[in-house]
């Protein structure tokens, strides 16, 4: 099913990408398990984002595909060919790094033409192809600039053009946007997606920014401790997280203490169905999305476990996120902004929790966010 989602985006692809398979990859560094049996199959032309907290093995996975590191075991198969033992320069991969990596002594077009020079393409063709690639990333007018004469965002676009100029089989991006400020980041993110769709190249995009992953990818693989915990389209990852880790890492989640009893969890008097109905009875933390919390004013006189005071409101545009203090606990609710404006700080409110199936967690603490 996920493959069709990916293929749908490929309608206008100029060139068919190839399938890329990571099979049961293991990698240990002196005592640290960076990858613990990671498997992933990417459909031709698909963009998969690997999302996860710092140190979960995202970069390691990408470097194994590039051939910059060797796996202890497992295979990398690109377009049906096993490339596991091949050196990087035989693999036909395009890479964009987190840190700026343009060759500082070469101009933008010389950078883009570098891979063609390695392939002994003649000078005239190099120049022409570099020009086309710079046009693709919207930098035609910057061909003769050096890296130090370009902004961070422009440098990363040149790096993208450089990676694509050799028409690689796979495009690998390791947090290419994390050195940029927020506005440029969002714009360049969309730009990368546009170019990727236009070229139709199979792409692995590593990031610890969930918004970025959800916005750009055909499928998102949420990584945890060296393996993929859940792989699926962004909407599924967000609205139907398979594990507590995914629920808490992606999107905002209220952690509400409750008690599991008979396939349901009782949270402050509200009974919510469970995603994992076979969970053992006993105390647990219910993971409730802010969207599942509704708010009604008029709690002035009432009392009870679900009555509290609005303490802050964050406007996000069409929706707003309201923090409500329930005395022993603060709950986030996501409301249409029109409703939220009627609830200034200090307003007494009564909340309700929509009875969607929830995940429960029995960990003490929430996983650390990147």
């Amino acid at each position, binding site marked *: 099913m996920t493959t069709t989602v990916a293929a749908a985006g490929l309608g206008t692809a100029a060139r068919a990408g190839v399938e890329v398979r990571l099979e049961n990859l293991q990698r240990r560094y002196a005592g640290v398990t960076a990858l613990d049996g990671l498997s992933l199959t990417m459909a031709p032309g698909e963009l998969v984002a690997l999302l996860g907290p710092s140190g979960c093995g995202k970069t390691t996975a990408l470097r194994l595909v*590039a051939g910059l590191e060797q796996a202890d075991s497992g295979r990398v198969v690109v377009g049906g060919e096993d490339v596991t033992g091949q050196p990087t320069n035989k693999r036909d991969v395009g890479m964009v790094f987190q840190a700026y990596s343009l060759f500082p002594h070469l101009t933008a077009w010389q950078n883009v033409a570098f*891979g063609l020079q390695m392939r002994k393409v003649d000078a005239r063709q190099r120049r022409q192809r570099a020009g086309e690639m710079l046009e693709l990333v919207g930098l035609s007018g910057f061909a003769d600039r050096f890296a130090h004469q370009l902004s961070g965002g422009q440098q990363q676009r040149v790096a993208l053009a*450089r990676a694509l100029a050799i028409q690689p089989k796979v495009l690998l991006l390791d947090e290419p946007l994390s050195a940029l400020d927020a506005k440029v980041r969002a714009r360049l993110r969309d730009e990368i997606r546009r170019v990727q769709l236009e070229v139709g190249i199979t792409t692995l995009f590593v990031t610890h920014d969930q918004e970025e992953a959800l916005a750009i990818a055909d499928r998102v693989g949420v990584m945890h401790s060296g393996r993929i915990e859940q792989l699926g389209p962004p909407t599924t990852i967000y609205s139907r997280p398979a594990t507590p880790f995914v629920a808490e890492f992606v999107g905002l989640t209220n952690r509400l203490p409750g008690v599991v009893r008979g396939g349901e969890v009782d949270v402050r008097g509200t009974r919510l169905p469970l995603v994992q109905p076979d969970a053992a009875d006993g105390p647990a933390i219910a993971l409730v999305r802010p969207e599942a919390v509704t708010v009604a004013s008029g709690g002035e006189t009432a009392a009870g476990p679900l009555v509290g005071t609005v303490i802050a409101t964050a406007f996000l545009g069409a929706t707003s996120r309201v923090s409500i203090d329930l005395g022993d606990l603060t709950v986030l609710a996501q409301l249409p902004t029109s409703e939220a404006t009627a609830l200034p700080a200090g307003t007494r409110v009564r909340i309700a929790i929509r009875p969607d199936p929830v995940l429960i967690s029995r960990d003490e603490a929430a996983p650390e966010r990147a």
Partner: protein
Amino acid sequence: MIAAGNPDVKTARRPREGGRRFPLHWIGALPFLIYVALFLLLPTAIVVVGAFAGKAGPSLSNITDLNQGFLLNAFFSSLLISTASAVVGAVAGALLAYAVATGNPRGVLRRVVSSACGVLAQFGGVTLAFAFIATIGSVGFIRLWLQERGIDIFANGVWLTELPGLVLVYTYFQIPLMVLVFLPALDGIRPQWREATESLGGGTWHYWRYVAGPLLAPAFLGATLLLFANAFSAYATAAALISQGNPIVPIAISNFLTSETGRNNPGLAQALALGMVVIVAIVMALYALLQRRTSRWLR
């Protein structure tokens, strides 16, 4: 942009509070600037004036007097040993710096080499000359030890107190200086450049030929020039090692200033000094030029 390029606009937009302010941050630099003025600019001026002064008013006689065989020889020797010790020091120092740069950034090698170079680059003069005389001088213990085993390092004369000896001894501080000057450039080389080269289909040869080589060349050349200037103007070490003749320019200058045999000639000494100033100035200008390029590339 416009405001920055036009002082009028700047002042108009931001009125001064309470008149012109004394630039306080200059006070800290003042002692140093006075020092430089007294002991660099003033002596240079004296040298220039002295070089062009004759017995009665300005004259070119000192300059034309430079055209004597033994003085031209001194210049030639100075250039020769400076070049030789700079090239040897640059190559050996660059290799050592490369070993340090590619090693563990917190490893023993780096710590030891960095601190040792900081000290040894300043090592020179009588102490250094003595160290060599005591080990491989004509009665140095290594020399004697080798001699007992039938190896005579001075079979063709005691070269330690001649020009080849100077090159050897100078190399002792040239290598550490090279490490100090060249290491920052090597540290500026990013690992991503190599990885990018590989992902673009290049190998080790391509990396050195098209990326690391061109990037490091200006820094290497610049550092070599600095080493040249360093050796060219060194005096104390040579003076301690060589006790007679006018083998190199700094010693010749000293002889013309302090000679007790009636060959005192301050005017000629100043002309010689002027020659050195000109050469060092040219070399340092080239160094600065190359350094500027490097600093833009290898931050």
